């Protein structure tokens, strides 16, 4: 019988020459179409930039303090590989298996050394069988067409095959991603009734959170931690919910407990650092983040924000020189414009705290030299912090407001705003700022939609276009601006400027969320223009 590997494209990441040669021999002997063997994460990243692979076979231990888990976390969190690309981690000991259970960071399977060629082949065969059964579903997920994903899941669930729980898992995610919280809750409740699996209970907690029942979500997450202590996602989610409710010490204790079981992903270490700083434990923050940066120094999961966090923890302990060293170190690895803004803003805070107003102002000027429209949330927060440091509170608040309105659904918004406000962010201030910023943009959006519905397209378009230009990542605003423009042209005829703007907003929406249901509405109107 022909191996399922026949005709497949395989990327092998293995630093040991012997293993690389043996695996290469084994894979090519069963007729794979292409096998690229690389020795490092860097070379693997270059490979996936230009090629698509069906299977990635990656050794956990890659030398130079890098490992396969860092690579997996990076490529999955940034969606650099399709859900249809299988990822198998080869490990020497089983404890690596338990590093994390966040779906995005879990490989499709682990292979424990040593293994025979026959064992490898039979395992890969099973995984490809599953990949082929779920291929259409995964493709729809890649395209973020959640309605299609849900429809496909419902069809597959009637077949009652061995992948039924995989399909349940994907359906729950799709319901949550498409904002159908009540349906997601019902779905997960049904799964939990069949079997109280950790991921299904986490899904239930996420659905409850989305419905606004934070206490209910926390209760379930605490249950999971007692019953299934390996479900690391439960710790992360519970810590976030606690932090959002201003229970910083409790949140930190939860993340500490998680750390005892597994060292954790970079994102958990970031949360722990932020929480430690928020509750005044700057020494712990320094320790956690400097260690995380050291461990990941050759890994792509590092971020310029990690250096900014470490520098902040140092400044808070009056270690200005050490903080400047951290910025200097970061500048060697991060040279893009957003990173420069973050590092300039960080320097501003360091100098201001050291009493050097002149250097602080110069650093802030450098940070604000580029256009602030639509800059990423984290970058905006860094600049806001610098503005606060030099006493420009109104400018800081207006930048925070704009950043919130640009990305109103960021899960860690509360923690981020609290972190910027520092001691001023205690109590309800951060929550008030977030709520009022969100309220303002919702009102603006509703006003725009109401005017469009009433046929006052000119006013609707003026309102929504201005907002869409200011907030290019707020998909609701961008989508409604495109729709209002399209409807305007259907009624009053095509105008080249309106058409250009409409297409610009439409394409931006498609790029950021290709499955957005509003795209269809916009396209239907654009089709009518052609007739």
């Amino acid at each position, binding site marked *: 019988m022909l191996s399922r590997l026949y005709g497949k494209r395989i990327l092998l990441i293995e630093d040991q020459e012997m293993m690389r040669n043996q695996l290469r021999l084994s894979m090519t002997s069963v007729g794979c179409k292409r096998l690229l063997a690389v020795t490092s994460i860097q070379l693997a990243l270059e490979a996936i930039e230009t090629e698509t692979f069906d299977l990635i076979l990656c050794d956990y231990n890659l030398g130079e303090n890098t490992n396969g888990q860092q690579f997996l976390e990076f490529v999955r969190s940034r969606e650099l590989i399709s859900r249809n690309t299988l990822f198998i981690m080869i490990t020497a000991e*089983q404890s690596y298996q*338990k590093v994390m259970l966040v779906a995005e960071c879990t490989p499709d399977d682990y292979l424990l*050394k040593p293994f*025979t060629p026959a064992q490898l082949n039979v395992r890969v065969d099973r995984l490809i069988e599953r990949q082929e059964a779920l291929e259409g579903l995964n493709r729809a997920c890649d395209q973020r067409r959640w309605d299609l994903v849900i429809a496909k899941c419902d069809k597959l669930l009637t077949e009652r095959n061995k992948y039924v729980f995989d399909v349940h898992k994907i359906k729950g995610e799709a319901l949550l991603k498409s904002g159908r919280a009540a349906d997601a809750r019902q779905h997960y409740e049904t799964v939990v009734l069949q079997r109280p699996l950790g991921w299904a209970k986490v899904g239930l907690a996420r659905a409850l959170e989305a419905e606004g029942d934070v206490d209910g979500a926390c209760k379930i997450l605490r249950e999971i931690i007692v019953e299934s*202590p390996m479900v690391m996602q439960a710790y992360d989610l519970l810590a976030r919910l606690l932090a959002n409710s201003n229970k910083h010490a409790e949140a930190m204790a939860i993340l500490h407990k998680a750390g005892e079981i597994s060292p954790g992903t970079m994102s958990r270490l970031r949360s722990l650092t932020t929480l430690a700083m928020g509750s005044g434990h700057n020494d712990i923050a320094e320790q956690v983040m400097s260690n995380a940066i050291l461990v990941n120094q050759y890994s792509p999961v590092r971020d310029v924000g990690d250096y900014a966090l470490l520098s902040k923890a140092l400044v808070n302990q009056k270690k200005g020189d050490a903080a400047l060293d951290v910025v200097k170190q970061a500048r060697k690895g991060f040279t893009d414009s957003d990173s420069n803004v973050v590092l300039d803003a960080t320097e501003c805070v360091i100098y201001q705290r050291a009493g050097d107003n002149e250097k602080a102002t110069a650093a802030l000027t450098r940070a604000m030299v580029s256009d602030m429209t639509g800059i990423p949330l984290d970058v905006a927060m860094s600049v806001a912090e610098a503005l606060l440091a030099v006493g420009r509170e109104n400018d800081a608040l207006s930048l925070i407001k704009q950043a919130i309105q640009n990305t109103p659904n960021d899960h860690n918004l509360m923690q981020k705003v609290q972190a910027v406000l520092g001691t001023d962010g205690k109590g309800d201030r951060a929550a008030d700022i977030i709520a009022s910023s969100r309220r303002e943009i919702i009102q603006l959006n509703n006003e725009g939609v109401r005017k469009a519905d009433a046929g006052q397209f000119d006013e609707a378009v003026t309102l929504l276009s201005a907002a869409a230009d200011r907030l290019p990542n707020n998909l609701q605003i961008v989508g409604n601006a495109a729709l209002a423009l399209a409807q305007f042209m259907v009624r009053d005829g095509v105008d080249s400027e309106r058409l250009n703007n409409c297409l610009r907003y439409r394409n931006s929406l498609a790029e950021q969320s290709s499955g957005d249901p509003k795209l269809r509405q916009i396209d239907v109107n654009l089709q009518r223009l052609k007739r």
Partner: protein
Amino acid sequence: MNDHGGIMGSDFPLLSSAILHEVKNHLTELQWRLAARSDASAEQALVANCAQRLTDLLLAQRDVSGLLLADIDAHCPADLLQELATGYAGLFPTLTVDVQLDNAPVTAFYDAFLVRLALGNALHNACHHARKQVQLSVHSSNEGTVFQMTDDGPGFPSDFLAQGAAAPSNPGQTGTGLGLYLAGRIAALHRLGEHTGRVELANAKAGGGIFRLIVP
């Protein structure tokens, strides 16, 4: 600090992990070289056993530190048994490793990694003692999912049957003491309401040992 203090201190876990990784790489190399020959299945089985003992040791270490935890999800038990049988049929070519799946449930709930290790240990033991045949099967019972292994060897010694999957009385002994103990621990990590997984040993009337791992 003297040299002893240094090596037994904070670097020790790193050192042991590095050595383990190296040994496992060498074992893999040996395994693949042997697989390329057609006359070295006994040596391959020996390598597999060495690796399994190392893995058992690590599992025991995690157990002692309270970090032996299960990540239970839905899996296809038939796939697991077929995979194990394929692996061991190559290592014991004179034996027939038969998989009976007539009553296999489509899905069962267990930690695939841990159950694979426990069944691998038991299968190695069964193959080691079998004369001609080992049979693997899986079925549902009112206790949950029952993985069963039957061999046509001499069966378990009576004191072994009495001791069951209790802690190994003599950790230095060769054989299955630790493997069986770990299988019992792994089974016990599987809980559903009042039910807890367990391991069961028996001898068949016609002779031969029967190993059962039951997960709720």
